[in-house]
């Protein structure tokens, strides 16, 4: 197969290009539309002309206005802060839990793990209403706590950590124990150094989850200065619908930021998920 002529591969490449285009085209259009003046956006879409997808000049005005006039910067910072905090806290809490499930023996281990995993079958939408009441009880409505704390414990992430840690050979831990090491030393010196892939993939998962989160922030926060990025975007639609170029600019910013983190780290992401192996 390595000696196949380029020509034989062509239909294959076309297939890939087609699929790739399917994914990229809408986002490309969003990009070009954000860089042109408002009136031009729909001028070339119908009837369709290639001008819709290619620009003769770049107009960055929209990118400026969303930050200076629409306060979009606040939303970006909010999302970044909330995501960062959740990743930090989430890695510790879920990582520890995964570690315990993988390495310790204790009564009720199976049951607790089962319950944990089952819990991730309950997506946010289902419990958003009663969860609101719980948060209200704590007095956390309209605060960063409401945005961060409910997202910390995550069944999928615990599952990932547990699977990953199970793969690490027991002998390493046993040997260390023979030398009198406590669990803390074992975690720190043995498991942690090997955990880079799973930490990255778990971190990315948590980050994505918070960054893209819409319904929960919508419900639990009110103030303008607590708006996260997805809620701010949906708000664009209500108030500033005419400013399509700004809407596109904002959504491009919201999309590109996670990509800047994801794409370079994709190798680790895959590794982490692979190594989790799913081997029960």
């Amino acid at each position, binding site marked *: 197969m390595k000696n196949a002529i380029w020509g034989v591969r062509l239909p294959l490449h076309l297939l890939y290009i087609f699929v790739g285009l399917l994914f990229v085209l809408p986002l490309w259009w969003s990009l070009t539309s954000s860089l042109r003046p408002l009136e031009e956006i729909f001028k070339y879409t119908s009837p369709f002309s290639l001008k819709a997808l290619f620009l003769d000049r770049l107009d960055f005005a929209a990118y400026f206005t969303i930050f200076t006039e629409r306060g979009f910067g606040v939303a970006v910072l909010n999302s970044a802060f909330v995501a960062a905090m959740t990743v930090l806290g989430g890695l510790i809490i879920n990582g520890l839990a995964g570690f315990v499930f993988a390495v310790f023996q204790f009564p009720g281990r199976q049951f607790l793990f089962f319950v944990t995993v089952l819990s991730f079958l309950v997506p946010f939408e289902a419990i958003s209403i009663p969860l609101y009441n719980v948060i209200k009880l704590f007095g956390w409505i309209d605060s960063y706590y409401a945005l961060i704390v409910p997202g910390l414990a995550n069944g999928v992430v615990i599952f990932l950590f547990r699977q990953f840690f199970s793969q690490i050979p027991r002998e390493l831990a046993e040997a260390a124990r023979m030398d009198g090491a406590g669990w803390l030393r074992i975690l720190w010196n043995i498991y942690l150094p090997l955990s880079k892939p799973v930490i990255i993939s778990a971190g990315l998962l948590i980050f994505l989850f918070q960054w893209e989160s819409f319904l929960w922030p*919508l419900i639990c926060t009110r103030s303008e200065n607590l708006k996260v990025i997805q809620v701010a975007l949906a708000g664009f639609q*209500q108030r500033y*619908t*005419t400013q399509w170029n700004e809407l596109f600019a904002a959504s491009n910013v919201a999309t590109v930021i996670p990509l800047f983190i994801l794409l370079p780290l994709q190798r680790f992401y895959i590794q982490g998920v692979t190594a989790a192996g799913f081997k029960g």
Partner: protein
Amino acid sequence: MTLSDNTWPANVKKAVAAFEAQNPDIKIQLDTYPFRDLFETIEVRMKAQDKDVDLISVDVPLVASYSVRGYLAPLDAYFSRDQIEKTWIKASWQAGMYNGHFMAAPQNTSTQFMFINRKLFRDAGIEPPKGLTGDQTVTYDQVAQIAANDRWTWEQVVDAAKKLTKTENGRTDVWGFAFDQVSRLYQLQCLGDSLGATLVGPDGLTAQGYFNSPGWLKAAQWYGDLFNKWKVSPKNVTPDESPSLFSGGKVAIFVGGEWNVGRFKEAGVDFEVAPIPYFKEGKPASGTGSWHVGISKNSQHQAEAAKFIQFLCASDAGATVWFEAQGQSPAMIALWSKISADPKFHAFPDDAYLLGDYEAQHTAVPRPLTPAYLQLEDIFASTYEDIRNGVDPKEALDGAAQRLDVFFAQFKR
């Protein structure tokens, strides 16, 4: 003290500032939300019996609903019946009553106009209806004359719209007609009202025979035809987008709220304000009603809250601040008299207020009083959206009436 308010934070802030200036010992914290979010927030917080909220903005048709569910504290102790009748116009204070109690005071009211794009009419060579334009000044009496005698009918609107719609190769560049809040109850109620048909029965809890009455069927058919038969109005345009079509010169005739006057003036459209149309065989009817303010049942500061209501809704000072900031038709009788007399309001576009005054007093029909208003409004909107998208009106109305009665049944227990 907290006030949960609506979409115009800057204006409310002005009113709050004025109140605080007069009452230095009371501080008001303002929570504002976009339209859709406000209702949801009120629901959530009131259900949770939030003690932190003292005042809430009550969209007038929700007075019954909020009262039934115990969200509001009655205002009877603060306003006598006599006071009420003397301070506000009838349609407004009536809408704030429930079960004989005064539950929420009117901040302002609203009215509807027909907006004409003069340039498009000129280009098409059509004579626009008589109305208020930038090249003349008027008195109240003149305005009343126009509203009483020269009002266009919906039939006339359609005729003009057909000639004004420009379609080429399946693409429409200019639409003859558009509504402001497409498919919403507040906007379309005037259609049925013009034919003398109500949406629900007198007990506020019966839909069958009212929602799908022959009068409403006719109105619904007319509405659907706008999009599907005559094709003079665009589908798939949301209420948020609709006004910008007019200000962008893409719509020739626009029927919508008075608040669009300022917006269109700013956009530089050459427009005219005419009275809202009616059905030839019926009588003129216009939408009305706007925001009220009520005291939250669980408020710990009811007396102070009442003071604010007194200021904002019933005092000359407060109501004027609000009127000047917000620009919507006042509910206070005293303020109307002031406006009619003030020469500032004889020139365009402020003379629109005179027209608003006329409509509020002669053609305004308030929205149905029912504790299930939220369900009614929601089902109305999806029904008329369906009709807009081509569903048979009779089918749609019958289905909706059935659904509504299921909801209403709950309240009949």
